C-alpha cells in the first residue's frame, strides 16, 4: 500500500493534478473562515459592480487626512476624466464648429479646454450629430467643469434649525486618507453579480456545493456500476445478458435527454442539490458497469479465484477478497472521472434552467446560468462568468490529470 502510494506520488501528472485540486480545496475551506457572511446576501444596489476596493466616501471624509505632494497627481486626475478618445471627440466638435484644424492641439490640455469653454454651447445643434452624440458632448462638458482648478472642495453640512449650509471642512487636492484608517472598506476581488452579490464569496460556496454534488453523484454511479458489473461479470449467463442489454440501452440514449426528462418531471419545487446529484448518479453508471464487467470476466477464471472456489468460500468472500482488490484501482479512477463528469452535467442542466432550485446555496452551474441570463458575456462583465468557468475547468482538468497519472501507475503498458 505504502509502495503504491509512493509510486502514485512520483507520477508527475498525478502530482500536478493533485496540487491543483488540493489548492482549490484549501482555498475553498479557508476563505469562509476569513470572510464571513451569507454567500447569497445582496450587498450592492445595482448590478455587475466591477472588481476592486470599495472605500466608503462618507467615512473617508472624517478620517484623518495627510498631505502628500505628488507631481503626477494632477495629470492623473485629468487623465481619468479626459482620456484620448474624449480629446479627439472634442477636436472633432471644434472642427465641425469651425475652428481651423491647426489651432487645436489635443495634447495641450489647458489650451484645449480653454478653446472648448470659449466655444462650446450645449444648446447649439451642429449638423450631422445624432441626439446620442449631442448628449455625449453635454456630459463631457459637465465633466470638464473644474477640471483644471487647483482649489479644494468644500464640505458643508445643512443646519437643521436654519436650513443654511455650514462649512465644516475643506478637502485640498493634496489631501490623502490612509485606506487602513477608513472605517468601512470592502474589497470585492471579483465584483458583484447580476443580483448585487459578492461574486467571490458566492463562488467559494458554489464550488463547495458543486464538489459535494459531484461526490454524491460519483459515489452513486460507482456503486451502481460496480454492483451491476460484478453481478454481470461474475455470475454470467442470463443475468449477464439482461444486465448488458439494459446497460447498452442506457449507453446509447444520450445522458442529457434522461437528465432533462427526469429533472423536468420532478418539478421545480422538489429539485434540490441532493436530488439533482442522485439523478445524475442514476444516469451515469453505464461506463463503470461495462468496464467492471469486462475486468471481472478476465479475472473470473484466474487460478487464485478457482482455488478460492474449491476451498468452498462464499461468493461474497470471493468477490471481496479475490476480485475487488484487483479492480479497486480501476474503480477509483472511474469514480474520479464520474465526479468531474457530474459537475459538468450539473452545469449543463443548470444552463437549461433545470438545475437545482435553491434560494440559499449557489452551484457553479447556477452561477453560470445567472450570468448568461443577464447577458454578462455580451456586456463584457467578465468577472461574473470567467472565474466560474475557470473553477469548472480547474476541477475537471485536475481530476483528469490525476486519473491519467493513476492510469500510468497501474497500467505500465501505457507508459511511453
Amino acid at each position, binding site marked *: 500500500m505504502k509502495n503504491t502510494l509512493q509510486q502514485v506520488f512520483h507520477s508527475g501528472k498525478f502530482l500536478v493534478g493533485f496540487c491543483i485540486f488540493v489548492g482549490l480545496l484549501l482555498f475553498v475551506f479557508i476563505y469562509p473562515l476569513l470572510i464571513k457572511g451569507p454567500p447569497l446576501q445582496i450587498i450592492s444596489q445595482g448590478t455587475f459592480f466591477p472588481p476592486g476596493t470599495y472605500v466608503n466616501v462618507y467615512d473617508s471624509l472624517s478620517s484623518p487626512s495627510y498631505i502628500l505632494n505628488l507631481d503626477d497627481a494632477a495629470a492623473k486626475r485629468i487623465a481619468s476624466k479626459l482620456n484620448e478618445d474624449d480629446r479627439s471627440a472634442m477636436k472633432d466638435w471644434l472642427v465641425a464648429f469651425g475652428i481651423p484644424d491647426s489651432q487645436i492641439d489635443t495634447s495641450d490640455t489647458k489650451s484645449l479646454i480653454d478653446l472648448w469653454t470659449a466655444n462650446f454651447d450645449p444648446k447649439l445643434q451642429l449638423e450631422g450629430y445624432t441626439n446620442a452624440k449631442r448628449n455625449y458632448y453635454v456630459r463631457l462638458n459637465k465633466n470638464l467643469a473644474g477640471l483644471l482648478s487647483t482649489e479644494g472642495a468644500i464640505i458643508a453640512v445643512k443646519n437643521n434649525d436654519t436650513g443654511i449650509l455650514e462649512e465644516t471642512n475643506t478637502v485640498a487636492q493634496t489631501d490623502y486618507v490612509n485606506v487602513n484608517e477608513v472605517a468601512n472598506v470592502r474589497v470585492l476581488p471579483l465584483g458583484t453579480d447580476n443580483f448585487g452579490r459578492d461574486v467571490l464569496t458566492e463562488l467559494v460556496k458554489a464550488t463547495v456545493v458543486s464538489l459535494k454534488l459531484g461526490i454524491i453523484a460519483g459515489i452513486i454511479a460507482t456503486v451502481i456500476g460496480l454492483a451491476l458489473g460484478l453481478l454481470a461479470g461474475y455470475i454470467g449467463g442470463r443475468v449477464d445478458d439482461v444486465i448488458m442489454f439494459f446497460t*447498452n440501452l442506457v*449507453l*446509447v*440514449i*444520450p445522458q*442529457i435527454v434522461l437528465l432533462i426528462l427526469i429533472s423536468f*418531471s420532478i418539478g421545480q419545487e422538489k429539485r434540490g442539490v441532493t436530488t439533482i446529484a442522485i439523478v445524475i448518479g442514476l444516469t451515469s453508471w453505464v461506463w463503470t458497469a461495462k468496464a467492471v464487467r469486462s475486468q471481472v470476466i478476465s479475472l473470473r477464471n484466474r487460478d487464485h479465484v478457482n482455488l478460492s472456489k474449491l476451498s468452498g468460500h462464499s461468493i461474497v468472500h470471493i468477490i471481496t477478497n479475490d476480485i475487488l482488490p484487483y479492480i479497486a484501482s480501476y474503480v477509483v479512477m472511474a469514480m474520479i472521472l464520474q465526479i468531474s463528469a457530474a459537475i459538468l452535467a450539473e452545469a*449543463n442542466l443548470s444552463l437549461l434552467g*433545470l438545475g437545482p432550485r435553491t434560494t440559499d446555496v449557489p452551484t457553479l452551474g447556477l452561477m453560470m446560468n445567472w450570468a448568461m441570463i443577464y447577458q454578462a458575456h455580451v456586456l463584457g462583465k467578465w468577472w461574473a462568468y470567467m472565474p466560474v468557468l475557470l473553477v469548472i475547468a480547474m476541477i475537471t482538468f485536475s481530476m483528469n490529470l490525476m486519473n491519467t497519472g493513476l492510469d500510468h501507475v497501474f497500467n505500465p503498458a501505457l507508459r511511453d
Partner: protein
Amino acid sequence: MKGYRKYFANKLLWFLVTLVAAFILNFTLPRLMPGDPVAGIVARLAQGMTNTSGIQAIYQQYADLFGTNKPLVAQFFIYMKNVIHGDFGFSFSQYPRTVADVLKSAIWWTICLQFPAIIVGWIIGNTLGALAAYLKKGFDKVLMPVSIFVSNFPFFGMAVIMLVIFGVWLKWFPTSSGYGFDLIPNFSFKFIWSVFIHYQLPFWSLVLIAIGGQAIGMRSMSIYELNADYVKYSRFLGIKDWKIIGYVFRNAMLPQITGLALSIGTMVGGALIAEIVFSYPGLGVTLLHGVMGQDYPLISASTLIITLMVLSANFIIEILYGIIDPRIKAAQAD
C-alpha cells in the same frame, strides 16, 4: 455478403430496440411522477390565467390528446399513433403554433450546425493526433497539453470564450442568433451571407472542443500501432515510410470510429448547451424556451427528436464501420 447482411440486420434490430426503449422512457418518465400529469401541466400553464373556462378547455384538450382517462397501455398506443403522425400537440408557451411547427425549423438549424462541426472536428483532431504521434518532439509537446486542456473545458465554456474574444472584443462575428435580426429568411445573397457569418462562431467552438478529445485518442492509438510488429517488419522490408504510415493510420482510425459512435451522445448534449450560449435557433434554444415556459409537450418532443438523431447517427456510423473493417464480416460469418 452473408456476413454483412447479418451484421446490418443485427444493427438495424438494435437500432429499433433502442428507439422503442427511448420512446417508452420518453412516455413513462413523466408519468412515473405522482399525480395527474395533465392536471400538473394545466396548473403550471394556468399560473397567470384567470379564465376558468379557458383552463378547462386546455385540460380537456390535453386529456384527450394524452388520453389520461384511459388505461396506461391504451395511452401509450394513442401517444404512439399521434407521434407517428408527427402530432405532438400544441405548444403551451407559443400557443397557436403546434410543437411540430416549432421544431420543424429548429431541427435543421441543429443538424446543419452540429453534424458538420462534429465531423470536421473529428477529422482535424485525428489528423493532429496522428501527426503528434508521428512527429513527436516539439509538435507533440505543444499539441498534447493544449488538447488535454481544451478537451477538459465544458462545451458551453468554450462557446462563451469564443464569443467574448471574437464577438465582443474583436467584433469579427455577431454574438447571437442564426441570422441578422432585421432579415426575413429568403434566398437572397444578403440572407445567406448573414447566416454564414452567424454560423462561424458556434461552428468553430464546437469543432475546437471535438478536436481536443479526438487528438488525444488518436495519438495514443497511433503510438500503439507505430510500435506494432508489422511496422517494424515493413521497415525491414524497406517499404516506404509514407506507405507504412498509411497502414498505421488506417488501423489506428478504426477504434476512433467506434469512439465517435460512443461519444456522439455526449457531444450532441454539450453542443445543445453551446447553442444556448449563442442563442442559435436550434433545438438547444427550443429546449430552453420549453423549460422557461414550462412547455411540457415541447420538451418531450425535443428530447425524442434528439434521441432519434443520436441513435440514427450511431446507426450510420456502425454501418460505415462494418463496411470499412473487414474483420466485422469475418466475425459475423463464423
